[in-house]
């Protein structure tokens, strides 16, 4: 059981770069390393450049080459904070449901615009779901294809007007993004989904 401590190979806090067998170059700060499983966890700046977020990469060193320690840790690793497991569990559940809901919409033949709109609304209002091809917001407002402002129906009130504003702004943004590469729009969509 002479399992070496993580520090024996990679000190927590040190920066490491490596090349995967798939040809992907990885670089980041060592967060954890498990020798028995040869799993290395790196923390990298967010790929989407979001300040408060970061990417975490779990690498299996068995499929990595060119491991290079850029610089060793200079400080003792910070203490580990206790984690709110229930919060994590709920996040996992929510993420799963969201993805399934999105997949459901996609499988239902909802247009890309509809999916984008749904994700946009979902970022603001969590209480939205697909019902066939209709987007149901707060069980009150129904947005049916083609998902334009005038398609927002429901009980007149603040909820409806609020949803309309969101829809209106969404399409404005989409219009402004059309000048941009398609991929970027997708990226945006992707980010939004991730963030959500």
């Amino acid at each position, binding site marked *: 059981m002479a399992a070496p401590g993580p520090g024996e190979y990679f000190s927590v806090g040190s920066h490491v770069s490596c090349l*995967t067998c798939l040809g992907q170059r990885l670089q980041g700060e060592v967060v954890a390393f498990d020798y*028995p499983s040869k799993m290395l966890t790196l923390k990298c700046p967010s790929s989407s450049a979001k300040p408060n977020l970061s990417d975490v990469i779990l690498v299996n060193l*068995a499929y990595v080459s060119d491991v290079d320690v850029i610089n060793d840790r200079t400080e003792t690793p910070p203490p580990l904070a206790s984690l709110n497991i229930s919060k994590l569990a709920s*996040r996992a559940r929510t993420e799963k449901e969201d993805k399934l809901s999105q*997949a459901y919409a996609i499988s239902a033949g909802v247009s890309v615009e509809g999916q984008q709109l749904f994700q946009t609304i979902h970022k603001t209002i969590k209480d939205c779901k697909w019902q066939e091809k209709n987007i149901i917001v707060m069980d009150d407002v129904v947005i049916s294809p083609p998902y334009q402002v005038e398609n927002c129906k429901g009980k007149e009130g603040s909820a409806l007007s609020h949803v309309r504003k969101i829809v209106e702004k969404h399409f404005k943004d989409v219009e402004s993004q059309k000048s941009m590469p398609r991929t970027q729009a997708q990226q945006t969509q992707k980010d939004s989904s991730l*963030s959500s």
Partner: protein
Amino acid sequence: MLLFFFSIIFKVAFSGVYANMRMVHVLTSVVGTKCELKVKNGLIYEGVFKTYGPECDIVLDAAHRKSVEPSVGPRREDIVESIIFKSSDVVVVHFKDVDLNYAKKDNFTDSAVSARLNGEHKEKDLEPWDGGEQHISGSMESLDTDLSNGWDPDEMFKYNEETYGVKSTYDSSLSSYTVPLERDNSEEFLKREARASQLAEEIEASATYKARVALENDERSEEEKYTAVVRGERELHSLNRENKYIPPSQRNREAGMSWGAGRQNSPRLVQCSPGPPTPRSGPHDYNTMDQRVVNGGAHPWPSRCPSPSSRPPSRYQSGPTNSLPPRAATPTRPPSRPPSRPSRPLSHPSAHGSTGPLSTMPKRLSSEGPPRMSPKSQRTPRPHRVASCRGGGPPSSDYMSQGASVEVSAPPPTRNSPSGGTWSSVVSGVIFSTSSLAHRPRSPRQNSISGGAPSPSCLSSPQAGTVPVDSMTASTTATSPTAANPAANLETSPIEEAKESRVLETRQNSPNANKENVKPEASASIARSIGKGVYLWRYHRKQIDNLKKFSVEFRLQSSSNPDPVFEPMPQNKPPRDLVEKPKDQSNISEETSTAVSVAPTGSKSGTPSLSPSSAVPEQKRGPDVTSQGVQTTSPLANAAAKDKDEKEEKNDPVADVRKSTLNPNAKEFNPRVFCSPPKPATTPTQTRPQGQPSPSIVVQQPHTVYGQTMFQMYPLTPVSPGVQVPHMTMSQTKPYRPVPNMPQQRPDQHHPPGTSTMMHPATAAGPPIVAPSPAYSTQYFTCSPQQFASQPLVQQMTHYQSQAQHVFSPMIQGSARMITPPGHGQPSLVSSSTTQYGEQMHTMYGKNSLSPAPIPQQYPHPSSTLHPHSQHPQPSATPTGQPQQGPQHGGSHPAPSPVQHSQHQAAAAAAAQAIHLGNPQQQQMYSAMAPTPPSMTPGPNPQSPQANFPSAQQAVYIHPQQVQHGYNPNHMAHVQQAHMQSGMVPPHHGTPSHPPTMMLMATQAPAGPQPTLTQGTLNPIPVSSATHYSYTLTPGKDLSHRNSAHISLFTHSRNLSL
């Protein structure tokens, strides 16, 4: 190594990744995030990271294989519920845009917050502060060197006037709080003055007083005392003070600790008591003039503390005297009640106490109200008192003696029975005596002022006797609440061996309480010594000797002293002598109690110092003892007395049980409980005595009751003087405030019992209160809290109640309506006090009405219940006092007694009024109230009545204790008359205080007579509410204002309690 290490740490052999804390942590912190997982064959799966296995297997939920070409999203059918990837297949898992702090629990730590900061976060540069130019020259230094303690009041007034245009209405004469002392050269006045001064000296000389004053007047802040690094003169100051004060307190403590010391102390007390003769005048002075007290006793106080504080003490002193009379009266009432219940009830009310007394009572009550407010009103009461005293002069004296010793009812009853063949006579006598007593305290002034005649007879014997008795009782009651009760029980028990054993048990049970009691006793003894001392000293040093003997015999048992006293009392039967003796004995006992076991002799000198704190307990004990003595005597009196005795015995057992239980629980609780139990015992005894001696005794009992109340007051005051009272007084220029403080202080400082009682009230009362009807609880609570606060008081209260009950009971028996009416009448007259009493009475009556038969029993029970009875007696005393109220309340009542007095008086007045007016509504109310009581009445009747009374009494006491002002107010409120009449501002305070008191009461009530309390509390509350209402209706006639005020007060209290 790691695994081993972790295995050690977790005691579980985590395998694989699980053994790597950091890996576990980071992987766990990304649970629930979307990730892309690349397997070694190049495929990419996307899903929600669900979990991982020990071998770092990865589980993704809702995973789908990500197609190379960008797609809008996975199709439903592409998604797999969850996929487990073996670590050997995983090349890279990429978690994008993860918030690693998402699951951190400490989202509010600096690091957590700063981690979320968006953008650059730069700490502010700290800039040195040089204090500025203008500050350099001294303002800072001035702060260090400025020894002035805040703003000068005049400065404040000036500032407010200039800045806010607010003109202060502050009157340094405190005319709205007190009445100027009317001085004359009459012998009586001089006597009183001398006694007042003597009492003041005794009180001020007491270690407890000093200690409390020191606490109260300690200008040092909390920081200074406990945390600050002392420097300069201040520290020296404080140290000096502490040194001075501490020694006394230590002495007291020592005395309390060691019976021998206590004995020594008791001698002192006795010596002090010699002073009492003057004290008599003093009591009057007190009653008549708090100012005198202030002046006389105040002088010392003033020097120590500002005049305000000094005044309170003086008031307390006066209050004690006043209170004593009320207590005495209450005691008498209880006795009378028992008698009256059977046959007397009606006859008493109508014949002696009820009609005459009632009439007088109303007047007294009214006068009482005024008395406090204005001596004149008190004066009128005095005449009544005198008349009553005259009528029952001998009895009264007996009562006084017995009542004093018995405090509550036992003595009075016996006396009554002896003196008055008819209970009614006894009752009347009691009432008168009570009234006279109550008045006496106050009356002194009145006597001196208006009713020389009344005062002469009454004053000379009754007043003096009563006053002392009252003071004694009051002190006893005050002390008794916790310690006093035990002591009283013990004392009483000593008389009766069994009782003694009980007492001893109680004592044993509450060793702490005893200690505490000792202090209370000391205070009580002081008060007693003061009040009693005068009479006793003059009349019976022999008694003292006897007491000493008793004390010696009973040294260990504080109660033993009481017993001696009691014994002497019965033997001495001569009213005055007996009274004096009882007083002396009680004093002695108190002293002894204070000294712990010190004999009376010791108590004299010792008592003064001890008395402040110990006095209260002692008083309580004393009352109990007296009550026991009364009980003993009662056997002699009548079968009724026997019944009462039985009840008493029951009560005693209950008390014992309570004591025992209480003791186990807590000292504080024990004290109260003990006190309450003792009180019940005392009350029972009283009731017995009433039955037996009821005629004369009853009269005296009232006196005694008043005396008790007075004593209570004194105790309170003494206590306060010693500790709380002084503070109270000191802190609050207004007597009321001091008084309230006193009670609280007493419980806390003086006597663990007291404190415990206080605590108990809160704790115990709390539940009961809740359970009980709010209204009852409120009033009762208010009363009860006080009583609880001061067990002695409570006991006294019970006594009073018992007395009152007795009185009322007669009334009730005669005509429930009458009784209820009386209550109403009283309410109207006394308004608040009456209302309370009325309420109590009503409750009692209601119970009675509900179960007439029970009533007598109940009464006896109340008395027997000890606490309730004792309390009742006190209340009754107060009621009686109410007639006298004015004086008493004004004088001694300021503390607890006032309330009681007021109540008693009110009750008496109410009874009288009821008789006169025959308020159906009130009766109905009562009857209505009774329903709640009924429960009480049936089984608990004794208890419930007692409880009711006690509660009322307690409430009264509580008020006094908690806030003397509050008490006064409460008293005022209850009695209203006195307060209202006197225009006591305190009442207002009282109302505020009432709430606390109420709270206390509630808690206390439970603590004291838990059984009774609960019932009582319940009943009381309803009653009170009913009474209030009824009062409001009826009051209009006599004391609509008062009533309204009382009502308002009550409502406040109720609200508070609620």
